[in-house]
C-alpha cells in the first residue's frame, strides 16, 4: 500500500471537484487529436434493447436514447438505481455490446464509421474496471499475467508485457514481487480491485470506464481505492466515466454528474450544482434518500418507494411519473426532453438541466410557471405517492 495515499473518508472530503482543472487535457499525448476543447467522447442517442426470452418480441429498453459528452480530463459520474441501464451504458461505450442505434464519437472520430476509428482502436484508448473484483480476474492466472495480458494482446512481446505489468502493479501500490505471482483468491477485495485498475491502465488508455469500482469494498478500503483513482488520474492524465449508485462517492469524485432513470438521462449537470440544487424530482428523491448523519433530520418515510417500473413496458410520457410526487396529466401524456444543448454542447461547462416538465414553462405543468424548482420535495407526499 502506498503510504502517500491518504485514507480520507469520502464524506469528509470537500464538495465539488477535488481534481481541479476539469477542462485541461493532458498535454503531450500524441494521440490527442482535437485539442483540449474537443470532447473526448460524444454519445448521441444510444439505444440498446434486449429481447426478452419467450417474450414474443418484447424488449427490455436498457438504454433508451442516451446522449452526453465526456470532456477531456474530467470525471463524469453516472448515478441511478439498479436496473436503470448504467452497466449497459458502460458496455456500450466500449462496444462490448453493440448499440442498436446511436453514435459514439471518440476525440472527433466516429466509432465504427468508414472514416472514423475501428472498435479495436477504441479499445486501445478506453478501458474498463468492473464492479466484481473477483470475477473480473481469471481465477487460474497469476494476477501479473492478467495485467500483462492487455499489452500482450496489443502487440507487446511477453517480456515487455511482464515489465509493464510489474510497473503497473507498482503504480497501484502493490509490490509486484510479492503480489504478482499470486492468484486472485489469495488477494483481498481491495488488492484485487487495485489489480483490476492496473490491468485497465496497462494498455495506456486515455479514458477509463469505472463500473461501480468501489461498491463491493468496505468503507476504509473504498476510500483508499478512490484516492488511488484520483491519484492515477493526475499521474496519467486520464478521463473517467464513473458509475455508481453511491451518491457520496460520486459527489467526492465526479466533476459532472449524469442521473439515469429507466434507460434515460433525467438530469445532467456539474456535481456541485446538482447536489446543491437538484432539478429533477427523481434526483431530489435520490438525494433525500441518503441516510442523514443528523439524528434530528432522520426521516421515517422513504422519499421514494417501490421498485422502478418494468423497463419491458415503461410508463407512458415521463417514465418517472408513476413515482413522482409532482406528477400531473401532462407527465403521463408527453415525454419530457432533456434540453439538447446540455448533451451536445461541450463548451457549456456549467450547464445544468433536467428532463422534467416542471423545468419547461411551455409544458403546461402547474409548477412550471415558477422559474425555480422547489428546493426540496415535500417528503411526506413523496412517501405516499411513490408507489409504482
Amino acid at each position, binding site marked *: 500500500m502506498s503510504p502517500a495515499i491518504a485514507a480520507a473518508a469520502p464524506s469528509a472530503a470537500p464538495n465539488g471537484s477535488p481534481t481541479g482543472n476539469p477542462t485541461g487535457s493532458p498535454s503531450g499525448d500524441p494521440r490527442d487529436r482535437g485539442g483540449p476543447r474537443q470532447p473526448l467522447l460524444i454519445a448521441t442517442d444510444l439505444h440498446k434493447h434486449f429481447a426478452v426470452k419467450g417474450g414474443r418480441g418484447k424488449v427490455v429498453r436498457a438504454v433508451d436514447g442516451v446522449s452526453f459528452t465526456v470532456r477531456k480530463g474530467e470525471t463524469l459520474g453516472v448515478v441511478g438505481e439498479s436496473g436503470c441501464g448504467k452497466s449497459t451504458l458502460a*458496455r456500450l461505450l*466500449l462496444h*462490448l455490446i453493440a448499440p442498436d442505434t446511436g453514435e459514439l464519437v471518440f476525440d472527433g472520430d466516429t466509432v465504427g464509421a468508414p472514416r472514423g476509428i475501428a472498435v*479495436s482502436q477504441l*479499445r*486501445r484508448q*478506453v*478501458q*474498463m474496471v*468492473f*464492479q*466484481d473484483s473477483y*470475477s*473480473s*480476474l*481469471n*481465477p*487460474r*492466472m*497469476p494476477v501479473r*499475467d*492478467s495485467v*500483462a*495480458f*492487455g499489452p*500482450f*494482446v*496489443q502487440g507487446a512481446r*511477453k*517480456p515487455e*508485457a*511482464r515489465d509493464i505489468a510489474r510497473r503497473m502493479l507498482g503504480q497501484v501500490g502493490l509490490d*509486484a*514481487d*510479492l503480489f*504478482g*505471482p499470486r*492468484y486472485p*483468491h489469495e488477494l483481498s477485495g481491495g488488492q484485487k480491485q487495485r489489480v*483490476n485498475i492496473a*490491468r*485497465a491502465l496497462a*494498455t495506456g488508455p486515455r479514458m477509463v470506464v469505472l463500473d461501480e469500482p468501489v461498491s463491493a469494498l468496505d468503507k476504509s478500503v473504498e476510500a483508499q481505492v478512490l484516492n488511488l483513482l484520483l491519484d492515477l488520474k493526475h499521474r496519467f492524465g486520464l478521463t473517467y466515466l464513473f458509475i455508481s449508485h453511491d451518491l457520496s462517492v460520486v459527489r467526492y469524485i465526479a466533476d459532472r454528474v449524469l442521473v439515469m432513470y429507466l434507460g434515460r438521462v433525467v438530469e445532467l449537470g456539474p456535481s456541485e450544482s446538482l447536489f446543491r440544487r437538484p432539478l429533477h424530482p427523481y434526483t431530489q428523491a435520490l438525494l433525500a434518500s441518503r441516510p442523514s448523519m443528523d439524528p434530528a433530520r432522520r426521516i421515517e418515510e422513504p422519499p421514494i418507494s417501490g421498485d422502478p417500473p418494468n423497463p419491458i413496458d415503461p410508463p407512458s410520457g415521463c417514465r418517472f411519473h408513476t413515482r413522482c410526487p409532482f406528477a400531473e396529466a401532462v407527465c403521463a401524456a408527453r415525454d419530457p426532453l432533456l434540453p439538447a444543448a446540455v448533451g451536445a454542447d461541450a463548451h457549456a461547462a456549467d450547464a445544468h438541466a433536467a428532463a422534467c416538465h416542471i423545468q419547461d414553462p411551455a409544458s403546461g405543468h402547474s409548477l412550471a410557471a415558477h422559474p425555480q424548482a422547489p428546493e426540496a420535495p415535500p417528503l411526506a407526499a413523496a412517501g405516499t405517492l411513490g408507489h409504482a
Partner: protein
Amino acid sequence: MTAVSAPQAMPLQAERSDAQSDAASLPATVVRSYWQSVGYRLRHDPATLVFAAIVLAIVLAAIFAPLIAPYDPLKESIIGRLKPFGWRGHLLGTDDLGRDMLSRLLYGGRVALLMGVVPVLIASAVGGTLGVFGGFVGGWVNTATMRTMDVFYAFPSVLLAVAIAGAMGGGIANGMIALTLVFIPPICRVAETATTQVRSLDFIEAARASGARPLTIIRHHVLGNVLGPVFIYASSLVSVSMLLASGLSFLGLGVRPPTPDWGLMLSTLRQSIWVVPWVCALPGLAIFITSVCFNLVSDGLRAAMDVRM
C-alpha cells in the same frame, strides 16, 4: 486443441525462470510456480501416490508383458486345463485351454488399457473442442451442437456402445470407435457447461475490452478454466471405458479369441467358476483394481491441480 494431455496450458507462464529469479530476491516469501505447487500438494497426498504407483505398475506390466510373462499366452495344454494357483510353475493357474493365467492377464492389460485410454483421449479432443466452441460462441450454434449431443443421451451408454460396435462388426478398432462415439456427448456437455460459466464472467469481458480476439481469449482465458473439469471427468471415464470394452468383448463384439483380454477371459471362464473359482475371478479382479485406482488417482490429481486449495 489437445484436451486431456495438457490440463493447464496457461499462457505467459513460459518465462518461469525469470519469475523464479524475481522471487529469489525475496527470501522472506515462498513463491512457487504453478507446477511446483501441484507437485508440492501431490507429495503431501500419500493415498494418491500409492494408487498412482499401482496404476504405474499396471501400465508398466502391460507394456513389458513380453519380457515379464513366464509363458506364451497363446500356448495351450490339453492336460493342464483349469489348474489352481501354483500348479507346476503356473503361478496363477491355467484357463480352460490350459494357457498360463498370469501371462494372459499381463497381455490382457495391454488391450484393456488401450481400450480404456484411447477412446477417452479422442473423445476428449473432439467433444472438448465442440463443447468449448459451442459454449463460447453461444446462440444457435451452441443449441444445435448440444441438441445433437442430446440425441445420444436417449440411449444408455452400454446399449449405444453395443449397437455401434455391433453395426460395424467386432474387433478392437471398431470397439474403440464405438466407445469414442459414446464418450463424445458427455465430455462435450461438461466442456460446454464449464465454458458457458466462464464466458459470462467479467474477466472474459475485460479480455475483450483489451482487444483480444475470440481465439486468443479461448486459448488464454477459457481453456485454463475448462481443461480442469474436462480432464477430471475424462479420467473418470477411463475406468468406464475399460468396463464397457470388457463388456463388448464379453458379448463377442470387441476383442476376438484367442487374443487375451480381461473381458473376454471373464466371459469364457465364467463356465468354469465351480471348478477353479479363484482363477476365474482374476480377470474381474484386474478390471476392478485398475478402474478403482484410475478413479482415485484422477481424484487426487484434481485436488492437486486446483489452485484454490
